[in-house]
């Protein structure tokens, strides 16, 4: 086994035994179970679950990732004193942190679905939801690495992490909405699509909602997006953009990590 896999393996073992991760997976399991069991209609339950995922996964991933990275600072110093390269160490730490957290979300969503026995279409949407949730989880953990290795102070780092989430989850949409209202005389479909692509949460929402028939309810723009994403090129572009939201922050993280004075 190579060094990266070994470091990732021990990191994952540490996290998989943590009570926090168990509670995190449990939260999604309970939410999925309750929604499927008690809302009227599978589609409605899944739509609610999409909203829960889009709210909780980015927040939990970025905050937990940042806290974990600051807490492991001293251990990382000890590992840096071993005969391994920094790039390998980063890759191992990153995989060891992202895999268990993403797995917790996927397990939390999929296990109740399989246990309750949802319809075939429901399972397809659920699987897609789990996939996007995992990607979103990894993307926000990647953002956490960039924050934690850029900001030296722990409290300020946590504030930056929280601020990033607030910006992407709340402020961004408000800004887009305001711009759309102000510029409503112009054709906005393309700029809006670009704006959705530039925010991982909006992009995930777009990818998830187009799975539902009700996406048409989003109006003319929604219908346009759906037509765009229904095409192979559009869908690939959207998944590629989500992948970019993992790769770019992780690249920023690894560069900062390689240059950092510990």
């Amino acid at each position, binding site marked *: *086994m190579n*060094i990266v896999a*070994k*470091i990732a393996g*021990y*990191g994952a*073992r*540490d*996290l998989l*035994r*943590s009570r926090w991760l168990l509670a995190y997976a449990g939260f999604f399991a309970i939410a999925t179970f309750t929604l499927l069991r008690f809302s009227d209609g599978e589609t409605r339950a899944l739509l609610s679950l999409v909203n829960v995922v889009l709210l909780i996964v980015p927040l939990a991933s970025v905050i937990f990732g940042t806290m974990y990275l600051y*807490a*492991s*600072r*001293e*251990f990382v*110093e*000890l*590992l*840096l*004193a*071993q*005969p*391994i*390269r*920094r790039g390998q160490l980063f890759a191992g730490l990153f995989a060891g942190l992202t895999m268990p957290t993403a797995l917790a979300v996927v397990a939390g969503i999929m296990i109740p679905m399989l246990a309750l026995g949802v319809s075939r279409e429901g399972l397809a949407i659920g699987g897609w939801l789990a996939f996007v949730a995992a990607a979103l989880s990894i993307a926000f953990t990647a953002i956490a690495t960039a924050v934690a290795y850029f900001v030296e102070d722990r409290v300020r780092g946590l504030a930056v992490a929280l601020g990033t989430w607030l910006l992407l989850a709340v402020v961004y949409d408000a800004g887009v909405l305001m711009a759309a209202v102000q510029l409503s005389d112009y054709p906005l479909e393309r700029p809006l699509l670009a704006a959705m692509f530039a925010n991982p949460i909006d992009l995930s929402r777009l990818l998830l909602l187009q799975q539902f028939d009700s996406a048409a309810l989003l109006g003319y723009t929604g219908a346009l997006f759906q037509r765009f994403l229904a095409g192979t090129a559009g869908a690939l572009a959207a998944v590629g953009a989500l992948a970019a939201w993992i790769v770019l922050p992780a690249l920023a993280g690894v560069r900062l990590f390689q240059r950092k*004075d*510990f």
Partner: protein
Amino acid sequence: MIEVFGLTKRFGARTVLDGVSLHIRPGRVTAIVGPNSAGKTTLIKSILGLTRGDAGVIRLNGRDIDAEGRYRADIGYMPQIARFPENLSAADLFRMMRDLRDGTQRDEELLDSLRLREHLDKPLRVLSGGTRQKVNAALAFLFAPSLLILDEPTAGLDPVAAGVVKDKVIAERAKGRTFILTTHVMSDLEELADDIAFLVDGRIRFSGAVTMLKRMTRQLSLERAIARVMDGELAA
């Protein structure tokens, strides 16, 4: 063993190391002493490659230390603060380090002399601070490296454990291993140090053999000799 030439390190506007030159001789214990925030830990971390200097050269056995970090295969490091992954056990931790290094030589003597074996399977989060510090010490010696860097090794250890670690240092020095350590504890210095490097505000105020320091300051005890250096009576 190690030569440092003109090592300078700035953090923002603050100059932490200001042209430090130092020679660490093999088979001896070199103590780096000095007041708080004098740059001791930064100097150690520079040798380990954790911190990169803005200027200067560090050579290990005549070769510049490289970014790849292979030279660290022959160094054991005991950091000042021992914090490990909470849910791993000490046994996991030793296994992890073994997986990361492929050295065949193992030295598990401290596991017995520090009575760590009974704690090996507990999660590290339930171990006391002192026990974690013992794990930290045992890790540094585990691969029988020829250079050991110990950052305040006896801080946080009870007197018995501190004695065990000091005896280990003396025994390993007798086998020809080289030590760099920082400490604020005078008795550690008296017992262990062969050479002393005195660091104040990022500059070496004195470096050389303990016997020479005592002779130059005309003091019998190391503590008084160091006090004289601190007073600024001695130019390097």
